[in-house]
């Protein structure tokens, strides 16, 4: 193709010249070593949550702004707790997008926040690529952590899932993992598939009807199953996705009833997986829609471990991105000095 593509890749946009994290926008393009470093850092921070005084000074004096353009309880509160445990000052902004679109543009709003000397934005947005847009063209001096964008990515969710898998299974090699449900609209699934493949699991499967699969899903590096019983065979890890009720409109699914019959995780179905398989769910769960209560609360369920690990993972990426930003700033200061010396 003639003419260069000058766009900086998302992967390189989030790394410093020495390869450290300075934003966390997606797991796509990040190396196995870097993902492992995130998991190791999170492991070392888990202990903080077990202390009497649950604080470390890694982000002391830094201002973290939680910018949620889309409603969230769990993700926002774990980000807030993570920032506070790192000793940062935290500002929570829940922005009703419809109100925001009436007045100032996204760019103007963010530049204002940057002018208030913010060091980090945790961004959730309904549009794919919004955190990337902010990191690239709006506030380059602020660390951006993606807390979920459109159907694109939810990298901290994926990494907390990886941490949970590593805790329970010890390693990624040889594992068979299936993600079940609405892959088409799922940022969680896209990030999980990337992370699992990078970390070297044996097989990633997706199990869903064709209406809930992106057309070229195989290209993500997954095996497709329409039949859940067949797809459950020999699984080590079962990841359920939340089914949004609005999927019944627009002819994606006929009813919750039929969906549960075909893709609901019941005790009987779970028996097709390995006996020590773990059951995961990014939450919030719909009991009786995608998962049977007895399975959600059962011995194989690690759903609450995921929540606990969410805080450690978020502490890890926030502290790593902040030290990456510090490296960039130091570099810029040195360059400025050299420049003025000339």
């Amino acid at each position, binding site marked *: 193709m*003639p003419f260069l593509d000058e*766009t900086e890749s998302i992967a390189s946009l989030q790394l410093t010249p020495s390869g450290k994290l300075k934003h966390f926008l997606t797991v796509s393009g990040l190396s196995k070593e870097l993902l492992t470093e995130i998991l190791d850092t999170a492991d070392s921070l888990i202990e903080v949550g077990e202390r009497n005084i649950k604080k470390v000074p890694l982000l002391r004096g830094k201002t973290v702004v939680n910018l949620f353009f889309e409603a969230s309880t769990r993700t926002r509160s774990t980000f807030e707790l993570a920032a506070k445990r790192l000793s940062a000052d935290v500002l929570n902004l829940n922005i009703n997008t419809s109100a925001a679109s009436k007045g100032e543009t996204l760019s103007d709003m963010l530049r204002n926040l940057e002018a208030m000397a913010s060091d980090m934005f945790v961004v959730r947005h309904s549009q794919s690529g919004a955190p990337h847009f902010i990191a690239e063209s709006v506030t380059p001096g602020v660390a951006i952590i993606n807390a979920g964008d459109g159907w694109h990515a939810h990298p901290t969710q994926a990494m907390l899932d990886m941490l949970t898998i590593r805790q329970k299974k010890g390693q990624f090699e040889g594992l068979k993992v299936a993600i079940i449900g609405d892959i088409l609209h799922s940022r969680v699934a896209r990030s999980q598939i990337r992370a699992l493949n990078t970390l070297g699991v044996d097989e990633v499967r997706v199990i869903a009807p064709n209406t809930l699969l992106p057309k070229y899903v195989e290209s993500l590096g997954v095996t497709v199953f329409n039949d859940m019983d067949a797809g459950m065979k020999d699984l080590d890890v079962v990841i359920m996705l939340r089914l949004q009720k609005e999927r019944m409109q627009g002819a994606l699914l006929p009813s919750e009833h039929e969906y549960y019959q075909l893709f609901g995780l019941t005790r009987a179905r779970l028996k097709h997986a390995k006996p020590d398989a773990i059951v995961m769910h990014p939450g919030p769960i719909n009991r009786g829609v995608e998962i049977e209560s007895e399975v959600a609360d059962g011995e194989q369920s690690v759903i609450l471990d995921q929540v606990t690990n969410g805080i450690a993972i978020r502490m890890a990426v926030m502290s790593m991105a902040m030290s990456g930003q510090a490296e960039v700033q130091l570099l810029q200061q040195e360059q400025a000095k050299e420049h003025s010396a000339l």
Partner: protein
Amino acid sequence: MKIEILNGKRLVSNEKVSKQSVEAKHAELKLEKPKTSGQWLDFNRIEVSDGVITGIDTETKKSFDADITIDAQNCLVFPGLIDLNVSLREPGYTAKGTIATETKAAAAGGVTALCCSPDTMPINDSEAVTKLIKDLAEESNACKVLPLGALTQGLKGAQLAEYALLKAAHCVALSNGFNPIKNLAITKRCFEYAATHKLSVFINPIEPSLHEGVMHEGYVSTTIGLQGIPSLAETTAVAQLIQIAKSTGVHLHLSQVSAQESVSQVRDAKLAGINVTADVAIHNLIFTDQRVANFNSAYRCMPPLRSESDRLALIEGLKSGVIDAVTSAHQPHEAAAKQMPFAETQAGMSGVEFILPIAMALDNQLSEPCHISLIDFIHAMTHAPASILNMTSPEIACGHEANICVFDPTIKKVLHAENILSQGKNTPLLRQTLTGQVKATIFEGNISYQSETDSN
């Protein structure tokens, strides 16, 4: 005004190609290798006086007394380009562009005639708006502006616009822009009424119920989680439109086809003798959806950039004559229209100034399936659109109207925003090296553009 152009190469088109009948063109689709459309011949002097080419290498030693002399050393001289789809943005969207700025930009791109889409504000569905556009274009006097009238009132897809009156006001064809008509009965009546008035219909083939999304549905959209527009949204519309054209006898021109399957449907329709033509947006010939992988909104277009196999099918379609013409599909935007998360940005590229450098890039592509010769490309932006618009075939020959582009293919320049004449700086070619530069454009015998290095 007398102008002389000295010492260049002029395009002499293969008469059989430029003047052949529809039947002959369709017969050619069956050939494996279509004829090339022309050749370059050296000339010493082309004389233009009072809007007409009056002499080429005349033997008389009599001096010509030119008011303006253009040195065409290294240059190629060919008829001014005819662009079938340009958004001039005026009336109504002057933050994006005006008739003055965009026609001057077109002249800088070597264009001497262009069709402007009806999606202005107010919409061009009345004589008054058409007259306003014609008047402003005449004032700017940078190129011929051929308005496309609205196919339905307000482009709403419900009621017929006043075709006879629009035609009387010099609309050259009808279009509904990017507002597809939802009701096929309305489409059929529009085509019948257009055929009554011997007006062509320029249709962007879009099936609205399948047209949700912001980029091509493919591997990239799957990866980055942007909603994809399936090729099916275009190909099902192409199929329906061809059948309705066949039934009503209207001349259907499909604007900016983008999908591989559309090309084969147009080929079949032409072979079946249906009165259908098609064009392709120039960016669909050089870019694919891969460029959107990092959310760069400069590459957001309508129709979207599709896959590499679509791109190759479009190039092949153009070379074989299935796709008749190329258009810049020029869509200037203000900077803010592109500075948002991808899905909230507006579609379209500013491109009317960079047609020929892109044609050079296509000519330079060495691998055969990607290569389009400059001569064939120029044919697709001169003779082909003239034939679609039922205009006299433009030639660099005595007696022809002096609409001329003098193009230097040897100049290499890095493109900077401040050098773009269009109000829309929204092109992914910024900071890229472009090969080839329009040295001068002559519109109806007057200089409509001259590159800075030459005008001093």
